Structure formats: C-alpha cells, structure tokens
C-alpha cells in the first residue's frame, strides 16, 4: 500500500509511560534521529523524583517532549500534536495538555482492568467516547513486540522491555526519521550482550514495519531540514554543555579544573560528565557533603586550580558560609546552581528560578559575588566559560544559575571553533610586589581589575597567610581598624560592581515597541516565542534578556526607562522584578508562575497582549 506523505513545518511529540518504560531513552533517540535530519529541535524531559514509583500510577509517569521544525524554534512546544501513551496512567496524566485533533498512540496491552482502576478509570477510555475529539491509534505494543522477538534468545521480561524500541520504530517511520544512529546506539549500549542488541533492533524494525503495513496509519509525515547556519552540529543538553564549558575553561586557561561535588538532582550529571575527562587533568572529588565539596574546590583554587562546585538550591544554602570565605579570600571559584523547585526538597525534578535572591544576597555580611545565567541548553557552554573568565580575572566567586529546564532540555548546538573561545590565561604572582622589592603584599590590587595577586603555594618568597578575619588593605594583616573595614567592604562591592559586562541588547524588529519584556535565564525561549506570536499579530514588542545578574549591564537602566512598560516574566514570585524596581526605580510588571514547568509561549503571549492593550 502506498502511503500518502504530508509535509509539516513543525511537530511536537510527547512520549509518556511508566518510569520503567524507557521513555527518556526513547525520546532521546528520536531527538538524535531528528537532529541528523537537520531539523531545529527543542526538548523537555519531565520525570518523577522517584526512581521507580509504583508501576502504572500517575506519580510514576515519565515523559519526554520533543519539538522539531523546518525553522528555528525556541521552546519544546506548548501542546503535543502526538502523544504516545504506554499505559492508562500516561494517557490520563497527559490528556489535558493535548489539543483536540491530536494523535494518540496507545499501548492497548496495558489497558487492563487493573491498570485502569489504578488511575481511577471506571471503564476504558478506548471503549467509550471520551477520546472522540482525538485521533486514537490503538496498538498492541507489548504483545506485538513479544511476538516479533519470539525467535530471539531473550527472556519474556527482556522482550517486553523492548517495547519502547517498537514505539520508537513506529514513530521514526511516521515522521520519516533516519534510524542509522539508533542502530549504532543500540550496538554501543548493549555491547556486552549481543542478544539484546538483536532483540532491540528487531523490536525497532517491527515498529517501523508495522507503520508501513497497517492501514491504521495512512499518512506519513515529513519535516524538512531547518535553515541553519553552516557548520557541524550536535544535540546537547544544558548539563552536558556546561560540563564541556568547564573542560574548555581548563584548556583555555591552562589551569587544572577541580570539581568538588555532592550528588544532587538535577546537577549530578555534571559530576558524572566531568569525572570522564581526566585526560584533560580534570579532578573530580565526590565529597562527603555540600560544604566539603565547595571547601575542597576553594582549597584547590588556593593551590592554583580552577575550583568549581556544582549543586542545586539546597546545596548552595549549605555552601553559603564557604562562599563568603571565598569573598574574603578573593580567590576564583565557580558555583553552579542547577535550580529546582523549592523550598526544601520541593520538587527535585521540576524547574524553577527561585534561587536568584539567594545567589545575589544569600550570605552573611556584605558578600557580593558575580552571578550569571544561561538562556538555553547550548548557552550553558558559553555561560560556563564566562563564569570561569570572571572568576579567574577578578578573583571572585561566580554563581552560575542554570535550572532543570535548560539542564535536561536539549537543542542543536553549532560547534564552536576552539581557537575562537576566549583566552582565559592568568598570571600567578611570582615576585614581591612591595615598593621595597622584598615585601609581598597579598592585598595590593591591580588598579584596573581590583583583583589581588594570586600567589600560589610553592612560590618562594611569597609565603603569606590569608583567612576569614578582616584584612588590612594591601598587607593582608589581620585588622580591626574601623576605617579599614569600611574601605574593604566598599572595595569588595566595587570589585564586583565594576566588572565590565556586555551591554544588554534589545530585540525590537519593528523598532517602535513601547513595551519591553525583560527576562533572565531559561525563560529566554518561551519569552522569545511569545514575542514572535505577538508580532505575528501585527503588534510591536521588544525583548531583552539578562545574562549578567551581578553586575548588571551598564546600559540596563537607560534601556528600561526608554519603554512605557516593562514586563518581567519569571518562574518565581518576582525576584528579578524586585531588583529592577529597587535599582532603577522602574515600575515593572511582574508576571509569575511557579508550577515546576517552563512557561508556555501561549500563556505568555496572552499576558503580553493584555499589557499591550493598556499602553
């Protein structure tokens, strides 16, 4: 049977199943195939904190959403066009997000009386008219997979577990994805067990062939490659990009990278990734706790390494005292906070931007640090380099505020030329800097950067003592002198405030916008998509996005004051808006959501249109 092929410009697919169904892997593979094809992509994994929540229950549902298009896209998509539901729980948990007319592929084998009862279905939604508004494709995924593997030397359990590859095969067929990379992946993943390679490949092909032969799927879709800048690309998550950025910072500075970390969701993947790069001289220490992790990083910085610690909000709280010590010692230190929904344990696998206050102010005493935030998964690479640049040049702790959305989401990344990356080389102090030619003054500052000399142990003639007690200007001796303390507090503030950071750029294609949307961090994509939507309706709106939160760009006040209204959407209760109001006396409109999920572009678009009506 010849199938009709229909061209689409964009598609959003959500794979949903039980935590043990391998949905993250399935989504990841589909994404990789899609990347090979040259579509632009954005992904959103969404999974529970429990490793294996009770099977078949709503809390156990894990999903992976992928948005791909033949043009550049900014978000993983608001609403799926296709839902793959591996069980009744996955259907129930995700149905509300589907627009009418969406395709639903369900694994009918899991729609048993028992599984339906687990999630409160009185009768099967496949049998009544509750799904009437959707295009439902009932597929006996499990039994067809097991059937396809009848001749294979695998257990029934292993055969059933291959059902995600059947689903992947089917979707790959539906959307005309090239599957060679998936076959290679399976060979790598199961290298030690060839029978599983064979079984998974067979399951994948069975899914593909099912699509081709069954009459239920009459249409096949194509999404043409997006027009993207020439070059070599890979698909990358924020955590992976951030890790590579830290490795790159080590290469470009010539310093060993030292990571002290304690496992915490959603930051642990950075520890995993960096632990693989020992050939670059990267040392990773899995410390006994968050405090030891930052302590070890600071100790390594003192010894001349690029000290880094990676964590999430609860970990930053524990590290706070040591970060203040680093402020007093004036040593480089990069603190990565992959934010998650708080307070306390909160929702560890869900996203939020509510650690901004903590990053800016969460220390005892006057303890200013630099703060920067990446705007997208691939931007985590450059943000890590920028954090390292500021830390090394200005000898200061830098907090890098990533979040779960950019950390686990992915997008295509145009690989940079290594030589084009910033030169981060630093000079250690090698000789006395006192006027007499013999004295070493550990707190004599560079007049331009206000940085003190970095004199590392092992340097003869520069032996000196540093510590948390207030130091006298220049000599670094312990000082309780009132005027000296006042001077040192102001100097530490000025050190951060005078770090040159690029001016903020405004995107206003129409040039006559009267409303500015200001964001920071991971909201860049949804805000950008919402602004495009507003402009497509013929309205003008300007977008600006902050990368540097401390210090802020020098032109920010001027930019803010040149608009009638400033809207600040944040996944918190208005933390940036507070700062903007206090610093610039701008009556910004704060728009907030704290649902553990990124903004949808549609919601933001509606909000912005409301604001525009009242200008």
């Amino acid at each position: 049977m010849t199938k009709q092929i229909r061209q689409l410009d964009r598609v959003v697919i959500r794979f949903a199943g039980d935590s043990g169904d391998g949905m993250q892997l399935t989504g990841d593979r589909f994404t990789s195939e899609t990347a090979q094809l040259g579509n632009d992509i954005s992904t959103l994994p969404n999974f529970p904190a429990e490793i294996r929540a009770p099977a078949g229950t709503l809390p156990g549902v894990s999903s992976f959403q992928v948005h791909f298009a033949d043009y550049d896209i900014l978000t993983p998509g608001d609403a799926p066009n296709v839902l793959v539901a591996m069980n009744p729980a996955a259907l129930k948990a995700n149905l509300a997000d589907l627009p009418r007319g969406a395709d639903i592929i369900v694994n009918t084998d899991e729609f048993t009386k028992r599984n339906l009862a687990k999630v409160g279905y009185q009768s099967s939604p496949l049998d009544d008219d509750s799904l009437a508004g959707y295009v439902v494709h009932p597929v006996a995924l499990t039994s067809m997979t097991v059937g396809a593997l009848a001749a294979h030397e695998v257990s029934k359990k292993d055969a059933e577990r291959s059902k995600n590859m059947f689903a992947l095969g089917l979707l790959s067929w539906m959307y005309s994805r090239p599957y060679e990379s998936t076959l290679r992946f399976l060979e790598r993943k199961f290298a030690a067990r060839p029978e599983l390679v064979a079984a998974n490949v067979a399951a994948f092909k069975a899914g593909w062939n099912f699509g081709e032969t069954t009459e239920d799927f009459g249409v096949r879709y194509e999404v043409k490659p997006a027009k993207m800048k020439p070059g070599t690309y890979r698909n990358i998550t924020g955590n992976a990009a951030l890790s590579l950025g830290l490795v790159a910072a080590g290469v470009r500075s010539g310093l060993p990278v030292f990571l002290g970390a304690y496992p915490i969701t959603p930051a642990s993947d950075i520890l995993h990734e960096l632990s693989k790069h020992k050939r670059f001289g990267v040392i990773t220490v899995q410390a006994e706790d968050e405090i030891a992790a930052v302590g070890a990083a600071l100790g390594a910085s003192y010894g001349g390494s690029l000290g880094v610690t990676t964590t999430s909000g609860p970990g930053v709280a524990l590290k706070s005292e040591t970060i203040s010590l680093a402020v007093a010692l004036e040593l480089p230190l990069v603190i990565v906070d992959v934010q998650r929904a708080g307070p306390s344990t909160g929702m560890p696998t869900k996203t939020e931007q509510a650690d901004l206050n903590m990053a800016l102010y969460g220390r005892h005493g006057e303890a200013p640090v630099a703060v920067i935030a990446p705007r997208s998964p691939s931007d985590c690479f450059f943000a890590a380099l920028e954090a390292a640049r500021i830390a090394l040049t200005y000898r200061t702790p830098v907090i890098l505020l990533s979040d779960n959305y950019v950390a686990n989401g992915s997008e295509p990344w145009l690989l940079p030329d290594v030589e084009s990356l910033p030169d981060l080389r630093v000079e250690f102090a090698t000789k006395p800097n006192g006027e007499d030619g013999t004295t070493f003054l550990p707190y004599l500052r560079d007049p331009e950067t206000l940085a003190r000399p970095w004199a590392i142990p092992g340097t003869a003639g520069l032996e000196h003592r540093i510590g948390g007690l207030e130091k006298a200007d220049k000599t670094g001796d312990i000082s309780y002198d009132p005027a000296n303390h006042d001077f040192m507090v102001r100097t530490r503030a000025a050190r951060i405030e005078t770090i040159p950071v690029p001016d903020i750029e405004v995107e206003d294609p129409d040039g006559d916008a009267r409303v500015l949307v200001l964001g920071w961090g991971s909201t860049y994509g949804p805000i950008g998509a919402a602004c495009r939507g507003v402009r497509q309706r013929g309205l003008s709106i300007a977008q600006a996005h902050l990368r540097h939160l401390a210090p802020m760009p020098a032109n920010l006040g001027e930019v803010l004051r040149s608009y009638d209204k400033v809207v600040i959407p944040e996944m918190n209760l208005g933390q940036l808006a507070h700062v903007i109001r206090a610093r610039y006396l701008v009556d910004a409109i704060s728009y907030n959501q704290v649902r553990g999920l990124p903004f949808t572009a549609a919601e933001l678009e509606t909000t912005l249109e409301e604001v525009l009506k009242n200008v």
Partner: protein
Amino acid sequence: MSEPVAVKLTAKDFKSDQEVRWCPGCGDYAILAAIQQFMPELNIPRERTVFVSGIGCSSRFPYYMNTYGMHSIHGRAPAIATGLSVSRPDLSVWVVTGDGDALSIGGNHLIHALRRNVNLKILLFNNRIYGLTKGQYSPTSEVGKVTKSTPAGSADAPFNPLSLALGAEASFVGRTIDSDRKHLQSVLRAAAEHEGSAFVEIYQNCNIFNDGAFDQLKDPSTRDDYLIRLEHGQPITFGADGRFCVVHPPGGFGLEVRDTSSVRPEEIVVHDATVTDPAYAFALSRLPGLDLRNTPIGVFRSVDRPSYDSVVQAQLAAAKAKVTETPEQQLAGLLGSGDTWTIL
C-alpha cells in the same frame, strides 16, 4: 647565574612577623615553638609547606608560621586542605584544629579525610573546652563538667578522639603533650614521614578556662605512673622501674593494665604500631580512665595504605598517558564527539 644554594633553615625562618596573640601561659605557645623548631628537620622548603586551620584558639596557628597558610572557617579545614592536597601533591599540607573545630562542627570532614587517607598531617589541639568563645564545654569535656553553658554539669558523653580516628580508618594515629617538646617532636616526625593522613592529638592546657586539665600527666610526682610511653617494638611497661604493664587477657576483648610483678614477662604486650587490625590501637586508646591514669602517648598506629592523593594522581596520569594531541585538539575532539551532523 649559579644554582641556588640550599640554605639550612632554622626555627627563626618559620616565625612570621605577626604578633602572637594567645593568652599568656597558653599551651599553644609551647606547641608553636616546638613546631617551629622541628620544621627545618623536614628539609621541605617553606614555600611548599601549608598550614590550614579552622576556627578557635588553635586555628590562629597559621598566622604565626612563615609558610603558606589559610585560616579558614569553623570545622572545614580538612575539606579545604583535601582540595589543596589532592590538586597539589608537591605540597606538605598540615591541618591545625581543636577539639570543638575537629570533633563538633567539623566532625564529618575529619572522619572522611581519615577514611580517604588524604595526605594531611592533622594536629588536634585538645584542651577539652571552648576557649575562643569563652568557656563552654566541648565534645571532649568530661561528663558532669560545669561550664558557662552547663551550670548543672554537662550531660554529654565525650568523644575519645583517638578511638574516633581509628574507627574512621585512620592509617596513622598518635598522641602527645604540649609540655613535652621532645616527645611532641618525635610524634610529629613520625607523622610527617607517614604517607596519607596522620592524626595527632596534642593535649594542650587552656590556663584560662580549663587550667590543669592534664596536670596528672605533667606533674613529676604523678606523670610516670599515669603516662604510658609507647615505643614500637618495646614491651609496654610504665611507672617507677616499670612496675605496671599492659597485657591482653585471654578471653578478653581489649588490653588491661597489671602490676608487672604479677605477670610473666611474655604476657606483656610488645607495642607494634604496624598491626593491620585497628582493634589493637583501639584497645590502647581505651586504656585511660576518667582520672587520666594509664594514658598512652606516642604512635598508636602507623600502617601503609595508598593515600587518596596518590590514587587520584595515578588515575590522572593513566588517562594523560594515552594523550597524543594538544589540549586544543583534544577539546575540539571532545566537543565534536557523539552524533554530529554538518550543514553546508
């Protein structure tokens, strides 16, 4: 230019220009003088020696040593020193801490540094009181101790620092006393020679808030009957003419003190710091009574175990040994690894 001539350093070279600000009569003075006098022996250049401390009276120590030094925050010195030592195996890293710093607020870092066997020399000045905060009981204060924060007597059972260190898998454990310079230096010498963590408890008198805490071990009229001076390879006897000895009673779990005249010579335990099983050193650590009778000093345990630093460095070296490219080439390869695609 001629080669620099190695100059023999003296105690004076290790004195910094900072005024020492401990209370007059503090035991810390004696420890500082003993260490400054001892450091030249190690033949380690000053610039390669680092003292890291936490918070407390003892933690002011680095300011007075003309080496590299960091006075950090309460309890965290072992963690900070771990990062320094692991990343800089060329340095000699010393941690100076107190009973509150190491055993209360920093207890976690201490035990983990010891189990990892980080190449740190950890000197715990134990005065059994909080001095810098003016006289609260510490985790080594005796039960019932009346202090500012325990007017009715402390209800806390104390830690035995050596038992704790041994339980944390310490590969080197010793004890010495502030007032006995020769002994103190002998234990430090052994600690300095040890590869891995060396934990040394130094009994130190706080003459302001806990004066005389160790008097029985110092008073010429009592000390010989109270102190057990451990010497590797020697039978453990003490007191006038060796009238007491240490035995391992059959059927018992630990060690006990007996009158030497009541036991056969072969029953007397011969001290061996290299016994692999920490139970032996642990039994030694349990000998002292509440009145400090039967307090062993010296090296309890000194066993060979790879240091954390050496294992980490070996992994780095193994990974780097395979590298043939420049760092930039390696980085380009890493960035372009995995599934990539090219748009022309």
